[in-house]
């Protein structure tokens, strides 16, 4: 894990949390920023019957977590951060070690310190059973953009390999003609009809 340095500064009368000198939330009005973010995310989450926990990538000073929790108290929020020091800044959220444990816990807002390894296939299969949402709070990604991007792609299966699997472009024409379809390939063909 890359080392980073968290610090606090008072800017225009507000306490601002910084990582390696970059602020992890708005320098001007962190609370308003959090409320706006929470409202937008809440609308997105309301478009269907929400299943499972909500992973929020980026913890920072956790204003946005409090705002979303206040707006949608029924949500099971799991904040994810790469910085162990964040624990000292984010408030009294409970630290959980892994995604499965976070889901099983009854804590309203749990905090995971993500390791660099992404979630394993086995772990994700388990997560699929209950479903989950992934939200990003990008201001808090400062200093760990690459790690967060990789984690998000892994949690949402938006990796290049996954996109090839969905599009069916991972096989050559000869392979398509000669290789029987796998169950996943047949399922993808059916699901494409659901959204066509």
């Amino acid at each position, binding site marked *: 894990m890359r080392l980073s340095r968290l610090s606090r500064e008072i800017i225009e009368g507000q306490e601002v949390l910084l990582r390696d000198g970059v602020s992890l939330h708005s320098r001007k009005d962190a609370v308003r920023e959090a409320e706006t973010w929470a409202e937008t995310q809440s609308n*997105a989450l309301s478009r269907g*019957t929400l*299943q499972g926990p909500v992973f929020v990538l980026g913890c920072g000073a956790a204003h946005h977590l409090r705002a979303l929790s206040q707006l949608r108290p029924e949500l099971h929020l799991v904040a994810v951060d790469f910085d162990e020091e964040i624990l000292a800044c984010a408030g009294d959220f409970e630290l959980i070690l892994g995604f499965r444990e976070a889901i099983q816990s009854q804590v309203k807002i749990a905090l995971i310190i993500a390791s660099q390894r992404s979630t394993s296939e086995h772990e994700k299969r388990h997560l699929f059973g209950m479903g989950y949402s*992934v939200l990003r709070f990008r201001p808090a990604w400062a200093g760990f953009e690459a790690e967060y991007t990789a984690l998000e792609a892994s949690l*949402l299966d938006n990796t290049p390999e996954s996109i090839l699997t969905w599009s069916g472009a991972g096989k050559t024409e000869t392979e398509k003609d000669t290789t029987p379809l796998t169950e996943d390939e*047949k*399922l993808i063909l059916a*699901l494409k009809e*659901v959204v066509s």
Partner: protein
Amino acid sequence: MKTLCVSLLRLGDFFHHMHLLTAVEGESQCEIQILAFDEVKPAAKLFPQYKFHFIPRSELQYELVEKHRNWRRALHLLGTELRKVNAQKFDRILNMTHTSFAARCLDLLNAPEKKGLSFEDGRVRGWNPILKYVNDIWRNEESPLMNWVDVTALSLDLAEPPLLDADERPSAREIWLQPLTSDIRKNWDFANWQKLAAHLSQAGFEVRVIGAPNEEEVLRPVFGTAFTALTFLEMREQKQSCRILISGDTSVLHFAVLEKIPVHGIYLGPANAFKTPPRQKGAILWTEHSGFGPRDVAAAALAVIQGVDVASVEDVPFGRINSFGRLHIRTPARHEPASNGSTYVKTTGRVSTEGAGPSGSGRRVGQEDTRL
């Protein structure tokens, strides 16, 4: 023979499929199970004789479309459900739904015999001349000779399901109106329904405007105490009090047919009275082109109740389901103008339509009829 019937459409279509299940049952002694979308769940308890399996369509769409969800969960959900179905070890699968999704699902379902459109290892199977006719001709026709139930039965080598008769309910004093459909284009204007209700009330009938419990918010402010929220189960329990149901083309109409409630249908917008008519002998249907108004619908309902030929009291064309299940458009004989020259008065028959105007040329049905 353990048979899985695939019915992956909407609720109204599922009620149509119930006619086909009768044909399947009549064919041989078999245990029937049904694979349907979860929106059909409310109907499952109406048919306890069948075991249902459900595909959560809206959840699949949610997982696939929302950017904060992992699309592979949809794979997980669909795969899990279809594996559960396969665990039943069916002898035969009948695909009553000739959609690509249903056919793709059949590629994942196992049975020694599959009828209807399906895929096998990604390639189309089960294609027959009837399905080709449905795909190439029937679906583009406005008024085909065969309705959807008949053509589906034919494509599956099933006997044509019998038309249902409505039960006589001479003592029932209620007329039920179902104004809302699932598609705004199929809806008749509320003002027309209100006028229809007024005409029927004047004739001495108690009018109940019915709707699903979740439609109360829309219907209660318009229809007040005349509105009653009814589930399908409650509809079945209370059906003896209903003399006639007048409804748009919606699942309630097709369920009423199964319950032998006499029905009159108002088919507007994309509703096609030739393709998906109520499968009830003698049902009266009103279509977009006839320029009908609330008074016409009321007069026809009262004529049917009084045993009078609807054609003898109507000035506008109306449809009637004949004994072959096909919609027959009846064009009434020309009526003499009334003395005031502006309206027509029908003098024969026992039902008075005095005051009814001529068929409104150019009037758009579905909008409020300002004539009455």
